[in-house]
């Protein structure tokens, strides 16, 4: 994302409050191709240099159900969800409700063919005769529906002040070399732009003007960033099973790998296999990790549930593996196309017995890339499955970000012994804690030293990987694994801290909720409430977290789930500070808004003050 400071002072006069600072929603039906229109608008704002972000609020279906696309333009660089003030009403099924929920003085660009009578007179509305505008084209059926969406692009461009040239650029970005498509789309855009120019008299305050705030930035989805990161992390095996919202990660991965890892002779230095289910997918990943490849899978809740047994095997046999969980709303099949942070507790000890897993929490496309790379280093260094918990909002939507930094460090392949090294050492014991960090040495199949061979297993074993039921062998091995987990605390990415002077409230959160939280903190600061913020980037927690908690006596743990999962984990791991944590947990499938977060934080602070007064 764009830290506020990176946004140059808007060249648009601050007086004009809605200039480059509003949210719009496009309401259409699923499967009519409105995505192209929406992404064109999004890209256009971006190319104008205006900080912008789009959220696709779509149904779990392929065609015909209501779908919304939210775009927020923010000269200050805020990208959290905020309630739309400008509505593009192109769906008969939802227009009544869409209009009803608009704030006072909102504006509506409606498809005139819906013949909808507005009950509210506080709204500014524009009616676009879509059929009429399409009469020119001889397009039919699906293509016609699709082009129909281009009409609102043209009209909006005119109403908001987006130059046609920028729309054309944006279409160019979308269609790449396919110039004919750009042309055919522009035709419609120009037609409706013209119509709007002629027929509409602008009365609403929503306008855009060029800025330079997005200069040098990129815009992509978290899943694309994760895929790209994985490629630069050296992934060579991926096994997966399709599931929303993780599918686009693998789609991107297949694309990048085909582009970047195909040899001259057309052979592939990678293999991506679509498994028969997630149980098989994780099995392939564990098998590949054991045999020495950097292997990954991507899934969501239901897939995570099916991976439990193999996760436990990976933990116990100590096999590197990377699992991306693009979280959606659960329990069960839940809401497949809505976002959540609901798998934290389950993934943290996924697997029966005393299984404990390493978790990474990316919060931006930069971190999706960064963790895409580093997850493999961690997995191989620690010889354990590493779970990267992203979510639908971060993964499937387009976000601004700084261009990704090429990995500074070479790959860390961990403690793998070659035949030569075994010879030097005069042997090898698979599960011996040579270094005191709980991390043993391993060898790969194919190692020509006979002493390198061992039989990996999920059953009790001694330090030489030989089957053992001896109580002391079990205990020692378990204690070593616990030591290893503590080593992880020192190895994993540290939290990001922001602790301004005089903070009266502290916040702990992770992942994509940061945007609503950061905006909320700015608002509260203006209102005189200064807060400290720790953005957790990994589990298990390390010293930095303990110290932060030690410094603050009221800590709000903000998360997008019902049960306050991270809050319970922190209380369990930091009992001495358990009473300092306040759970602010919420889940309804929609990303948090700054309004909501600041209100909750305000209540909490108020509660404090009351506490002080009464006590």
């Amino acid at each position, binding site marked *: 994302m764009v830290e506020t400071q990176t946004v140059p002072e808007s060249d648009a006069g601050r007086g004009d409050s809605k200039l480059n600072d509003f949210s719009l929603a496009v309401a259409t039906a699923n499967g009519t191709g409105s995505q192209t229109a929406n992404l064109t608008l999004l890209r256009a704002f971006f190319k104008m240099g205006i900080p912008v972000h789009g959220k696709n609020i779509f149904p779990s279906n392929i065609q015909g159900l209501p779908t919304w696309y939210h775009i927020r333009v923010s000269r200050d660089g805020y990208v959290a969800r905020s309630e739309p003030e400008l509505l593009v009403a192109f769906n008969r099924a939802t227009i009544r409700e869409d209009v009803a929920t608009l704030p006072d003085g909102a504006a509506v660009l409606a498809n005139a063919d819906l013949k909808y009578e507005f009950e509210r007179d506080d709204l500014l509305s524009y009616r676009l005769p879509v059929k009429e505008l399409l009469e020119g084209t001889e397009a039919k059926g699906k293509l016609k529906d699709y082009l129909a969406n281009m009409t609102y692009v043209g009209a909006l461009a005119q109403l908001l002040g987006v130059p046609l040239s920028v729309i054309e650029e944006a279409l160019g970005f979308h269609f790449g070399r396919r110039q004919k498509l750009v042309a055919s789309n522009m035709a419609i855009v120009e037609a409706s732009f013209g119509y709007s120019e002629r027929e509409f008299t602008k009365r609403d305050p929503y306008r855009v003007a060029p800025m330079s705030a997005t200069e040098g930035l990129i815009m992509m989805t978290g899943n694309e960033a994760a895929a790209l990161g994985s490629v630069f992390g050296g992934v060579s095996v991926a096994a997966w099973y399709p599931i929303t919202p993780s599918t686009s990660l693998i789609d991107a991965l297949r694309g990048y790998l085909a582009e*970047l890892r195909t040899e001259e002779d057309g052979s592939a230095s990678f293999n991506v296999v679509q498994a028969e289910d997630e149980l098989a997918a994780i099995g392939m990943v564990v098998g590949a990790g054991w*045999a020495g490849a950097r292997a990954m899978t991507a899934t969501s809740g239901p897939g995570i549930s099916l991976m439990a047994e193999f996760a436990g095997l990976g933990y116990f046999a100590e096999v590197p593996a990377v699992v991306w969980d693009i979280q959606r709303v659960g329990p069960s099949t839940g809401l497949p196309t809505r976002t959540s942070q609901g798998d934290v507790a389950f993934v943290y000890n996924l697997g029966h017995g005393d299984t404990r897993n390493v978790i990474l929490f990316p919060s931006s496309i930069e971190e999706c890339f960064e963790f895409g790379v580093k997850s493999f280093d961690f997995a191989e260094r620690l010889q354990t499955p590493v779970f990267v918990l992203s979510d639908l909002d971060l993964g499937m939507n387009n976000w601004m970000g700084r261009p990704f930094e090429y990995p500074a460090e070479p790959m860390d392949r961990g403690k793998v012994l070659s035949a030569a090294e075994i010879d030097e050492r005069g042997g090898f014991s698979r599960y011996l804690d040579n270094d005191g960090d709980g991390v043993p040495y391993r060898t790969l199949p194919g190692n020509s030293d006979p002493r390198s061979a061992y*039989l990996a297993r999920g059953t009790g074993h001694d330090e030489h990987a030989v089957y053992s039921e001896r109580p002391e062998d079990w205990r020692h091995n378990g204690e070593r694994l616990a030591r290893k987990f503590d080593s992880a605390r020192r190895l994993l990415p540290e939290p990001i801290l922001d602790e301004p002077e005089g903070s009266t409230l502290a916040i702990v959160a992770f992942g994509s909720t940061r945007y609503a939280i950061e905006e909320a903190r700015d608002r509260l600061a203006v209102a005189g409430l200064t807060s400290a913020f720790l953005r957790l980037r990994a589990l298990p927690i390390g010293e930095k977290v303990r110290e932060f908690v030690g410094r603050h006596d009221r800590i709000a743990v903000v998360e997008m789930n019902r049960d306050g999962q991270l809050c319970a984990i922190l209380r369990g791991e930091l009992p001495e500070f358990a009473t300092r944590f306040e759970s602010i947990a919420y889940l309804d499938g929609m990303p948090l808004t700054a309004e909501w977060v600041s209100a909750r934080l305000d209540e909490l602070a108020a509660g404090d003050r009351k506490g002080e007064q009464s006590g």
Partner: protein
Amino acid sequence: MDRAKAIKSNAVGLAKADYGGGPSTLCVGCGHNSIANQVIQVAFDLALKPHEVIKLSGIGCSSKSPAYFLGMSHGFNSLHGRMPSLGTGALMANRGLRAIGVSGDGDTGSIGLGQFKHLLRRNVRMTYVVENNGVYGLTKGQFSATADEGQELKYAGQNEFPAIDICLEAIAAGCGFVARSFAGDAKQVRELLKAALSHRGTAVVDIISPCVAFNNEDTSTKSYGYGREFERPLHEIGYVPIAEEIVLEGQEPGEVRVVELHDGSKLTLRKLEEEYDSSDRPAAIDRLLRAEEDGEFITGLLYYDPSRPDLAEASRMVQTPLSELSQERLRPPPAVLDRIMQRYG
């Protein structure tokens, strides 16, 4: 094992003992033990390099046996019914390895049926041995999916369900090497294993391997008694290594079919009572179904078709094992990242 044999060493300079594993903890007389011994013999005869072999298994008495052979090879005793996916991953990571998978009838036919079928669809290059005893040995004798319909066992009661035929399932799934054998027929087991190890994709060898603890009554089709009395080989099998010449001691060529294996070695199938053509898929299935109806215990190479590429070939993987790729080949250079960043600007 007699002294002389023990010290004799093979082409890679290893003695048979070098292919041994830990002491078996299986029951004395368990069919699985004799199969483990044949694996040792075969590895020795083929002069396999232990580090080029991996051993894979699920969970069960059968799945324990990789601990009892090829102690100088890496292996993974994985999860119940999930060895196929684990093996697929291992071979994606390193296509150069030869994989010997050992499973049981419960491991493959019950919990693992789905993964088994999909392994075959992908034609992952591995020898997949099912040590088939019709029961769950390790959990003390419940019926598995291959138990005889109507069979009675003191502990497990009566089995009301039809038996899954591992070989029929394999052929249906498109497997190109499907064989059935009997732990009591050591020579045939050996020759089939040698051929399986030379096959292009997944080679399924379903070996009836009696459980002396829970299912060895003569009336059981999975018992030694039954096997010894009713085994009916479709042909006499001989494996001919790459170098060697085929010698057909005085009989009309017609009586012997010679099958060319993927790695250049050959298999001779000498005709016994009936004409049998292992290359005819419908015929193979038909023969299996008739055998089932007539309660015949046919063994041999039921079906062979080397035409399908294995997973590595189908996905056009580089010859170098992915596990051996250097950082240079794994991580594209900075310029590439810059180029891609441009696109998203």
